[in-house]
């Protein structure tokens, strides 16, 4: 991979063109970050099988490079590369997944949902990640059901949401949240019990990008529950905010 600024710009331009031409605008593009080659292979396959476009990198630094967030400024615009989701391992040498998460949430890419993976079921770790704005926390080893669930609640919902905004509004009075001051919308599909944040493709969406969900569905045993702690929205004027249903149960 590129080592110096000039070369990396050239590489990016080529990669950019290649990616652009191969990217179907409907396809979800996921950036997977993991230092373990075995895990990269597995997560790549898991994502491909759920019809996602995948780019894998082996470190947080490379992930930032790919996004164009590293110190070496690239003249190539990355908006069209359209990363829809970032999934990263927590334990990595150099930059941990947590540090990567913070960097992303503090950047112009903060709208991109970030999912953390870890082999350790440490509640404090999970809490801090979710506090920083992680979309979800997956316990390794990651299964197909985890990835399918992720994709379903994050992306098929988005699409149906942008199409059926009216439907959401209708649901508002029925679905009261814990917090009366913030109106909520819930997913139109009753089987999905998690909130999601819009991907970068719907950046014009009025929804707050920074709510998080606990990785819960009734049958998911590998993920841990987290108390519902709404994070502060980056756009305080946003009219709606989605809260997770399971949070209300806690």
């Amino acid at each position, binding site marked *: 991979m590129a080592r110096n600024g000039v070369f990396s710009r050239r590489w990016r331009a080529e990669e950019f063109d290649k990616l652009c031409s191969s990217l179907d605008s409907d396809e979800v593009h996921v950036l997977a970050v993991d*230092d*373990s*080659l*075995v*895990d990269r*292979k*597995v997560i790549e*396959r*898991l994502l491909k*099988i759920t019809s996602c476009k995948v780019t894998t990198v082996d470190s947080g630094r490379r992930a930032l490079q790919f996004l164009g967030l590293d110190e070496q400024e690239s003249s190539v615009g990355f908006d069209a590369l359209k990363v829809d989701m970032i999934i990263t*391992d927590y*334990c990595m*040498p150099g930059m941990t997944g947590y540090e990567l998460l913070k960097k992303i949430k503090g950047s112009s890419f903060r709208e991109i949902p970030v999912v953390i993976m870890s*082999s350790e079921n440490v509640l404090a770790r999970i809490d801090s990640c979710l506090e920083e704005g992680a979309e979800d926390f997956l316990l*390794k*080893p*990651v*299964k*197909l059901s985890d990835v399918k669930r992720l994709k379903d609640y994050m992306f098929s919902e988005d699409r149906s949401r942008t199409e059926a905004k009216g439907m959401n509004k209708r649901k508002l009075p029925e679905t009261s949240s814990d917090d009366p001051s913030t109106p909520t919308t819930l997913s139109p599909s009753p089987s999905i019990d998690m909130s999601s944040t819009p991907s970068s493709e719907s950046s014009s969406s009025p929804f707050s990008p920074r709510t998080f969900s606990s990785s819960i569905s009734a049958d998911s045993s590998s993920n841990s529950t987290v108390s519902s702690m709404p994070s502060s929205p980056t756009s305080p004027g946003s009219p709606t905010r989605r809260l997770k249903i399971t949070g209300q149960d806690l």
Partner: protein
Amino acid sequence: MLNNAAHYSKSGQHARRRLTQYGYPQVAAKTGLPLWMLGLGVERLRADMNRLLALLFHQGVLDEQYLQLQQLQDESSPNFVSEVVNIYFQESEKLLRNLRFLLEFSDYKKMGVHLNQFIGSSSSIGAKRVRNVCVAFRVASEQNNRLGCLRALELLEHEYCYLKNKLHELFQFRATDRAAKTASSYSQVSSPALKQKPKWRKLG
């Protein structure tokens, strides 16, 4: 038609003996066995493979994650499992070498880092027993327990060897199964009856 059927069953017995002796693909090539005959051998092969898999599960050598990997294998990625497992083997052997080296110099902290890696990759492929030994090893390293680490490393090397051998066996089964399938697809018989008649007589 009935006569031919009788022929088949007699020759079938001979062929079955040969299947076990020589291995399925070679027999297919030599005798030009029809598809259905080869099918018998392949079924036994698969039964053996499944028996081995069941044993490994029973022993706790593998867990459901291995099955998950198998689920990810399909026509578009027909060698996925063996590809991932081979990467795992390469990485693991490096880790084991490093662990031995680090133990010589009692660098428990770095050992912990390597063990985290080993735990992660082992759980990703469903290598349950190897993973558990790594966890115990990590505990010993956190306690700077040299003797405990030595014992754990020996056990780890043993478990890893066993896993590697068994997985190789599994892959051998799969390879033979595939070769048999390929061989039988080359044999020109689509229906057992008519085309192979002359060759059948040779078998007697």
